[in-house]
């Protein structure tokens, strides 16, 4: 080992406190980056594999009832590779020991065999067998939520008749990754599940013998989806086709794509900021460390060491720290990523997670870290070697201080000498002070950015459930029904208020853009289910025209006053021009609304309702649920309160873990900056401070000079960090806007408070450590060495 390398090791040991602080900053940055990026990559990979292995279809179509012969015509459509017809039906369920409303979707599967498309990934038991009528396979999340397994039973109201079903298997399916009940915001496995049943049983139960009401198909290579969809629509239209859709619009795939998109946003933006901050800090700290060694650099040059070998020496010093941090960060990141992956897996229900070390991700993290540290070295070494060795070895000329602006204004009497020292030092080294402030501020900003999520989420829940949707239960009928059904609902036990709604599937067109959705018809004076504006104030549904959510208006590029073409996709199948008369704020999903009567006029269906929102006496809820479950025309019952509680619980769990880790890392960064700045300030000014001690200053007084400066910088950094955090949060929000979620930028005071407290706490810890060092300042030793 050369003497220079030995110097390196001893220098590292000598600055171990600082080195560890830097190492942790790098570790935090790299760990965040590696964990989030690898989890995202693993999820995407696993999803693709799953889709391929279990033959997830490329297109889907629903129809009221098509005779079996139609299948051959569909299969002959050019561009369709494989095609499978099915029977599906909504169902209400009763699970023993669970008193709340449970809904489900029955999907037919061939008896004794896997379906050709959208195959089942069996997790327990077996598939349904031929000749056994009441056998079903349950979706895993639903089965788990109720503790059901092969051999258990549950009761279903199938086409108006109660039947006992026997569970024979538990499975996952690519078509129903996220089982979100239509009309609900989030999956709620306790109250909604997909159930697979033998085809012939289901056909018999729903008068579908020899017919089907659902189609899935895959495309041949090179086929045009749009053309295929058009032909399928043409064939199915006479049988009540509701419009074929591509995979993109399939609800489960759509939801998961949107979730992945926001996950990708978070997993790119957040760690990138983290890593950038870490790199930035590394750069500052490194360049200061080297600046401190100016005299040693002078000596080495005097002996004939070239600039290159001096640069290489410091590069090594820094790389040892940075790369150890990167290596540990990668290891921690991979481990955290594994945990995070498990967490996502319980939510997304992929059969397996293909989690592996993603080499490009790791290499990127290491290159970024090494690059940032080398840049710091380069700047500092360049500055150091630019001086001729004679000057480098001499102590730097006494820095030129001057009275600060405040003092020149005649206010100097307000400040004692130590305070003047703080102020003059800050003014003279303003560029460096600025860098420190920015460094501390960025850790504060990371905190704000990490914490604001839950604010945003609380806001969405409040807006959606506190202001817009105030019903206790939403009841959907199997098909549009006369308003008389409302009186029937009103007479049920405990019901205090009934409000009808209508949902009509439509295709909205504007110029070349189009969007398939359902227009919701609401009464003009809606009381339970309302639409709201940006200030969260309810708006009256205009008697004429269409109300769009802001996001949908943006997607279609329309505004109030523009005229859309609306194609009704049921019953009359009319096409009408309709003017957009208002926009509404909605944070989850995209939708269109019309006044109930106007919508019925458009659909040409008389005074029909698709369902109703109920408000009632909670004490009677159990009886009400039972009564509703026994009504044959009721397709689904959604209980709002329970849905919210379930959502809150699952979100909170993952949010908490995330926030906790993020706060920890940001605190580490804040500590790293403040501690290093104070340590460097101490080593630059130990002579000055020791001289003051010799002159009779107390330890507290000299601590005030050094730590007072750090305190000023930290206090300046916090408001800046809050502003930067708000900006970053705005950026994050922009990158997270998907068709599914529109996160509002909501920053609560508590978030700022918490972020500030964490930064202050980190500052306090560094101050205590530096204070301990100050207390042990070697007065004689410091003064004995040369100026």
């Amino acid at each position: 080992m050369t003497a220079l390398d030995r110097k390196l090791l001893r220098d590292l040991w000598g600055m171990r406190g600082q080195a560890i602080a830097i190492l942790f900053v790098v570790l935090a940055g790299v760990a965040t980056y590696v964990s989030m990026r690898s989890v995202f990559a693993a999820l995407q990979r696993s999803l693709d594999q799953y889709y391929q292995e279990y033959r997830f279809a490329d297109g889907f179509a629903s129809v009221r009832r098509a005779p079996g012969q139609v299948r051959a015509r569909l299969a002959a459509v050019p561009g369709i590779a494989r095609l499978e017809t099915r029977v599906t039906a909504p169902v209400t369920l009763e699970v023993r020991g669970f008193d709340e409303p449970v809904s489900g979707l029955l999907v037919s599967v061939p008896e004794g065999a896997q379906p050709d498309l959208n195959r089942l990934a069996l997790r327990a038991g077996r598939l349904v067998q031929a000749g056994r009528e009441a056998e079903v396979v349950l979706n895993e999340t639903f089965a788990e939520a109720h503790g059901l397994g092969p051999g258990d039973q549950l009761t279903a109201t199938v086409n108006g008749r109660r039947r006992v079903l026997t569970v024979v298997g538990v499975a996952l399916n690519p078509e129903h990754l996220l089982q979100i009940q239509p009309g609900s915001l989030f999956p709620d496995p306790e109250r909604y599940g997909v159930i697979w049943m033998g085809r012939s049983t289901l056909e018999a139960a729903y008068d579908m013998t020899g017919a089907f009401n659902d189609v899935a198909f895959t495309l041949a290579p090179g086929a045009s989806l749009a053309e295929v969809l058009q032909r399928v629509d043409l064939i199915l239209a006479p049988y009540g086709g509701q419009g074929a859709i591509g995979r993109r619009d399939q609800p489960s795939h759509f939801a998961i794509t949107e979730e992945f998109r926001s996950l990708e946003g978070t997993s790119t933006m957040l760690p990138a900021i983290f890593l950038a901050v870490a790199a930035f800090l590394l750069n500052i700290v490194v360049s200061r460390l080297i600046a401190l060694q100016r005299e040693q650099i002078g000596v080495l040059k005097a002996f004939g060491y070239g600039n290159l070998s001096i640069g290489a020496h410091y590069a090594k010093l820094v790389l040892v720290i940075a790369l150890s941090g990167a290596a540990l960060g990668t290891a921690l990141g991979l481990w955290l990523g594994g945990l995070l992956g498990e967490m996502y897996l319980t939510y997304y229900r992929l059969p397996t997670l293909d989690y592996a070390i993603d080499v490009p991700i790791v290499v990127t993290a290491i290159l970024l870290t090494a690059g940032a540290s080398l840049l710091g070295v380069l700047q500092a070494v360049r500055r150091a070697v630019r001086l001729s060795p004679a000057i480098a070895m001499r102590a730097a000329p006494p820095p030129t201080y001057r009275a600060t602006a405040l003092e020149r204004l005649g206010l100097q009497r307000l400040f004692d000498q130590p305070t003047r020292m703080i102020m003059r030092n800050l003014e003279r080294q303003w560029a460096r002070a600025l860098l420190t402030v920015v460094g501390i501020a960025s850790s504060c900003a990371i905190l704000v950015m990490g914490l604001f999520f839950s604010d945003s989420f609380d806001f969405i829940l409040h807006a959606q459930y506190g202001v817009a949707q105030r019903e206790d239960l939403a009841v959907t009928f199997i098909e549009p029904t006369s308003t008389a059904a409302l009186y029937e609902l009103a007479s049920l036990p405990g019901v205090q208020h009934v409000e009808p709604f209508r949902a009509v599937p439509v295709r909205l067109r504007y110029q070349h853009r189009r969007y398939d959705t359902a227009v919701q018809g609401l009464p003009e004076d809606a009381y339970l289910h309302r639409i709201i504006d940006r200030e969260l104030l309810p708006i009256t549904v205009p008697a004429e025209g269409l109300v769009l959510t802001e996001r949908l208006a943006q997607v279609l590029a329309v505004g109030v006053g523009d005229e859309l073409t609306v194609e009704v996709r049921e019953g009359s199948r009319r096409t009408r021009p309709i003017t957009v008369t208002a926009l509404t704020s909605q944070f989850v999903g995209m939708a269109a609304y019309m006044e109930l009567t106007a919508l019925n006029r458009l659909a040409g269906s008389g005074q029909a309702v698709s369902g109703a929102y109920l408000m009632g006496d909670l004490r009677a809820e159990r009886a009400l649920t039972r009564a509703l479950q026994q009504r044959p025309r009721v397709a689904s019952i959604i209980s709002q309160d329970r849905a919210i509680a379930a959502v809150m619980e699952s979100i909170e769990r993952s949010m908490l873990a995330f926030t906790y880790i993020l706060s920890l890392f940001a605190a580490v960064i804040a500590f790293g900056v403040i501690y290093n700045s104070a340590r460097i300030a101490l080593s630059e000014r130990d002579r000055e401070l020791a001289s003051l001690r010799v002159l009779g200053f107390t330890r507290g007084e000299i601590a005030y000079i050094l730590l007072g400066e750090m305190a000023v910088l930290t206090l300046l950094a916090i408001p800046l960090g809050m502003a930067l955090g708000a900006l970053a949060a705005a950026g994050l929000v922009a990158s997270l806007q998907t068709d599914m979620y529109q996160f509002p930028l909501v920053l609560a005071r508590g978030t700022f408070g918490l972020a500030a407290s964490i930064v202050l706490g980190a500052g306090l810890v560094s101050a205590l450590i530096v204070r301990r060092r100050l207390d042990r300042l070697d007065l004689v030793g410091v003064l004995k060495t040369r100026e």
Partner: protein
Amino acid sequence: MTGVAAEIVFRARGVTKVYEMGEVRVHALRGIDLELYAGELVVLLGASGSGKSTLLNILGGLDTATAGEVLYHDQDLTRADDDALTRYRRHYVGFVFQFYNLIPSLTARENVAIVTEIARAPLTPEEALGLVGLGQRLDHFPAQLSGGEQQRVAIARAIAKRPAVLLCDEPTGALDSETGVVVLEALERVNRELGTTTAIITHNVAQSEMAGRIVHLRDGLITHIEQNAQRKSAHELSW
């Protein structure tokens, strides 16, 4: 020891140096003409601020002159670029500073090794330290050595490469006279045994008595150059 016949190592002509120190311009040298001869021991004598350190730094390639010409044999140091100066220092020059400038994180042996590792045909660190009487303190860190010992490590470090010239800037400036004598003895021994051209800066008239020639400086100018007829050996000195 001296004589016109001896080979000229350095030739300086009209050397001036102006420093910009913060907001002040300091004229450190105002036109110096000087020759140094092979194997001689010369003392540059002058009060602080007379320009002697600046002159030494320029001779050693640590700094460049603002104007004038400095030749080391045939090499023009005033026109040398940074790389050339680095090579020059690496192969031909040994420095001893007033404040030792040891690397605090390296032991005595390693402080010497840092130079021998990049030199052509150096002494071993042990030999060099033996020459200054520190053969027993090889593995001590600077903080564990007295001032005189630290300075002798610095001398060992400077001579380990067998430099053509040894330039010493107030080598005893931070030492008491007893320790100072030990350090000067070490320099004298190196000059004698290795034949290294040695230039020592001091403001101490007593020390100049060990030199063959004494160059007097004041305010950036050479006032006169004195041939020392009654040369003393270092152990006879006291101040």
